C-alpha cells in the first residue's frame, strides 16, 4: 500500500535511493542538494542500505569515482547541483561515453557569477550535450517517481546510459508537499537486481575501459551514442507503463494540459508548470483556449512528438529558466527546431523567467498568455526573446 507523506523533494529523492539500495554512492555537499545526500548518509549510518559511500573531496572526484564504481560492475548513484554539476562536466561525457548507467538527481540551481544558490535550470541545461538522459520533475512526487524509473531506463540492456533527474532547487528540494511513497519491496521488485554488462571486476576476462581512439573509429563511437539515444523514448514509455500499474500515476515523455484544442500554449519545465496550469484554468474560464506542454524527457528530446502536440496551435511561448547569452533560451531552441519540420506551425516566442530563483508569479503567466492572445490574432511576434519579471 502506498504511504501518504508530507516531505521535501530532497527527502523524497533520498528515500527513492534508499528503496533502490545502490551498491556505491558518491557524496559531496552543495546547496541545495546537500540535504538529500546527508539524509542518504544517515540511511547508510543506520544500516538501512547496503551502500558503500565515497565521501569525495570534490564533485569531479565524485563523478570519477562513480565511473570507476559503475565500470567495476554495480549500481551507482550520486547527486549534485549547480557548480558541482559544472565541475563534473568533463566526467559527464566519460560516464556516457563508457555507457555507464549512473543515476544522479540534479537539484537545479543557478551558476556563478554572481554567486547565487537559488533555483534555475542553467546547470542541467549546460549539461544537455553530455550524453546523459534527462528527466525533469514538476514536484516532489515526480522527482521521486522519476528517480525510481530512471534506474529501469538507464540500466535497460538496450540503453546502458547515465541519467539525471532534475528538480527545482529550494522550490521543490526544500518545500514540503503531500506525496505518496511506494512500499520498499515494491520499489525493489520494480527496479530488480542490477544486471552487469562487461564489468571491470571480471578477472577472468580482463576489460580495458577508456582506450585512445582517434580518427579511425571515434566518429563511429559517437554515432553509436546517438543511435542508442534514439531508443530511449520507447524505453521511458515502457517503464512508465509498468510504473503506472504499480502506482496509478501516468507518465509520458511530456505532459500536456488542456492542449488538445488550445489556440495558444506555453511550453515550460519543472515547478513553474504548476503555477502556469492554474492561470491557464483562469484563461479557460474567460473563454480563451489556452494550454500547456511540460517536457519530462529533455534528453533525448522528443522533436516529432512535441511538434505533433503543438502544431495545431496558433501561438506558443517557450519559457526558459536558463539562458544562452547571445542565443535563444535552450528549451526554445529545441521546440523551435521541432516545429520547423512541421508544415503548419504556430508563431513562437521565448521568455526568460525566474533566473537565480526570481519568483515566477501567476501574473507572469497571465502576462504571457495575454500577449499570446494578441500574437495569435495579429499573426505577428514583435520580439522573439524577452525577459519577464526583470527589474528595468
Amino acid at each position, binding site marked *: 500500500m502506498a504511504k501518504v507523506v508530507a516531505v521535501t523533494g530532497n527527502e523524497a529523492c533520498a528515500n527513492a535511493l534508499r528503496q533502490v539500495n545502490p551498491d556505491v554512492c558518491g557524496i559531496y555537499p552543495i546547496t541545495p542538494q546537500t540535504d538529500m545526500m546527508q539524509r542518504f548518509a544517515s540511511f547508510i549510518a543506520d544500516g538501512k542500505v*547496503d551502500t558503500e559511500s565515497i565521501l569525495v573531496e570534490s564533485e*569531479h572526484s565524485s563523478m*570519477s569515482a562513480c565511473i570507476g564504481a559503475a565500470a567495476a560492475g554495480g549500481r551507482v548513484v550520486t547527486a549534485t547541483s549547480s557548480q558541482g554539476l559544472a565541475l563534473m562536466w568533463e566526467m559527464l561525457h566519460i560516464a556516457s561515453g563508457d555507457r555507464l548507467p549512473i543515476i544522479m538527481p540534479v537539484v537545479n540551481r543557478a551558476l556563478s557569477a554572481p554567486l547565487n544558490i537559488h533555483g534555475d535550470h542553467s546547470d542541467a541545461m549546460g549539461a544537455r550535450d553530455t550524453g546523459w538522459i534527462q528527466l525533469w520533475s514538476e514536484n516532489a512526487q515526480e522527482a521521486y517517481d522519476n528517480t525510481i524509473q530512471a534506474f529501469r531506463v538507464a540500466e535497460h540492456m538496450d540503453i546502458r546510459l547515465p541519467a539525471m533527474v532534475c528538480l527545482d532547487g529550494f522550490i521543490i528540494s526544500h518545500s514540503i508537499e503531500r506525496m505518496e511513497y511506494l512500499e520498499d519491496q515494491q520499489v525493489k521488485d520494480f527496479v530488480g537486481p542490477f544486471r552487469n554488462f562487461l564489468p571491470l*571486476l571480471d578477472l577472468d576476462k580482463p576489460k580495458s575501459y577508456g582506450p585512445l581512439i582517434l580518427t579511425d573509429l571515434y566518429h563511429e563511437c559517437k554515432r553509436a551514442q546517438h543511435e542508442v539515444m534514439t531508443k530511449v523514448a520507447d524505453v521511458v514509455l515502457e517503464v512508465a507503463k509498468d510504473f503506472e500499474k504499480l502506482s496509478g500515476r501516468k507518465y509520458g515523455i511530456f505532459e500536456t494540459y488542456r492542449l488538445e484544442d488550445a489556440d495558444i500554449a506555453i511550453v515550460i519545465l519543472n515547478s513553474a508548470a504548476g503555477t502556469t496550469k492554474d492561470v491557464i484554468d483562469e484563461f479557460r474560464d474567460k473563454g480563451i483556449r489556452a494550454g500547456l506542454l511540460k517536457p519530462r524527457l529533455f534528453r533525448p528530446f522528443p522533436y516529432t512528438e512535441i511538434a505533433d502536440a503543438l502544431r495545431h496551435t496558433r501561438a506558443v511561448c517557450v519559457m526558459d529558466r536558463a539562458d544562452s547569452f547571445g542565443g535563444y533560451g535552450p528549451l526554445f531552441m529545441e521546440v523551435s527546431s521541432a516545429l520547423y519540420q512541421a508544415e503548419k506551425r504556430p508563431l513562437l516566442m521565448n521568455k526568460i523567467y525566474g533566473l537565480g530563483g526570481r519568483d515566477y508569479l501567476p501574473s507572469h503567466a497571465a502576462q504571457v498568455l495575454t500577449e499570446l492572445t494578441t500574437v495569435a490574432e495579429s499573426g505577428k511576434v514583435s520580439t522573439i526573446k524577452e525577459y519577464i519579471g526583470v527589474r528595468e
Partner: protein
Amino acid sequence: MATPLTLKELSKKEDRFTHGHRMCSGCGAPIVVKIAMMATEYPVVVSNATGCLEVSSCISEFTAWNVPWIHTAFENAAATLSGVETMYRSLKKQGRFDKDKEVKFIAFGGDGGTYDIGFQSLSGAMERGHDMIYICYDNGAYMNTGIQRSSATPLGADTTTCPAGSVIPGKLRARKNLTKIMAAHDIPYVAQASPSHWLDLAKKIQKAHEIKGPKFINVIAPCNRGWRSKTNDAIQLSRLAVNTCYWPLYEIENGVTRITVTPKEKISVAEFMKPQGRFKHLFSPENEGLLQRVQDEVDREWAKLQKEAKTD
C-alpha cells in the same frame, strides 16, 4: 602470495603488461610498469591517468594490459580507482564477489597527472584510506604533450614552457617533494624507487601489496625525448639519479623512514645532469650559480633524509 624476486623466476612469468605497446624506444616508464606488474601474484586492477603510458598502451582494439584496466581522464586516476575499489568492497560485503579472492588495485600516473592536475584527487583518495597503490612514474615534465614544465621539473631544466632563453635560464623553482607530501598524509606506506634498482622497486611493490590501505610509490622514469639524452641511457641515468642522491631510494613505513639504497660514493649531481640536453645551458659559465644551487638543494634534501632515517 609472494613471487620469488629472482630473474630466473620472473622470466618464467606471463607478462601482465606486454610488449607491443607504443611507448618510445628507450622510455623508462614501461620498465617501471613491467616490474610493478610482475612483482605480485595477486589479481590486479589498474587505473591509468591520461598520459604517455595511457595513450601508448591501449589504442582502439589493441591493449598491452593483460589485467582489467581503466582510464577515464587526466586528473583522476586515484578517484577513479577509489570507485572501483569501493565497488569491490561493496560487492564483497554483500556476498556478490568471491570472498576468498583478494584483488589489488594500482593506479599509474605521470608527474603531470600526479604532482599537478591529479594532486587533489590523489590526496583525497589517500586520505579516505582506499586500499590501493598509487605509482607515479616521474619523468619531470608533461612529456606526452611535448615537454612542458610541471611541478616535478627540476630546478634549471629547459622545457618548452620554461625554455632556457637568453634572459631566463630554464626553470627557476626547485621541484616539489611529492614523496614527502604523501608521507605527510600519514598513510601506512610511501616509497621512492628507480628502475635502475629493479629489485628494490619490486620489493617495495611486494611490500606495499601486503599493507592494507593507501600506498604511494614515486618512481623516476627517464624520458630521452624530454631529457634530451641517448635512447639507451634510461637505466644509466636513473642509476646516476640515485648515486648523486638527486633521487634517493627510501621508504616510510608507518612513519618510520628507512633509506633502502645508500650510494657507495655520493657523486656530484652534475654527473647526472651532464648527459642530459635539458641541463646543457647550466654548464656555461654564466649559469654556474644555478648549477651550484641544484647541488645545494640535493645536498640539503639528502642531509634531511639521512637525519630522518632509521639506521639499520
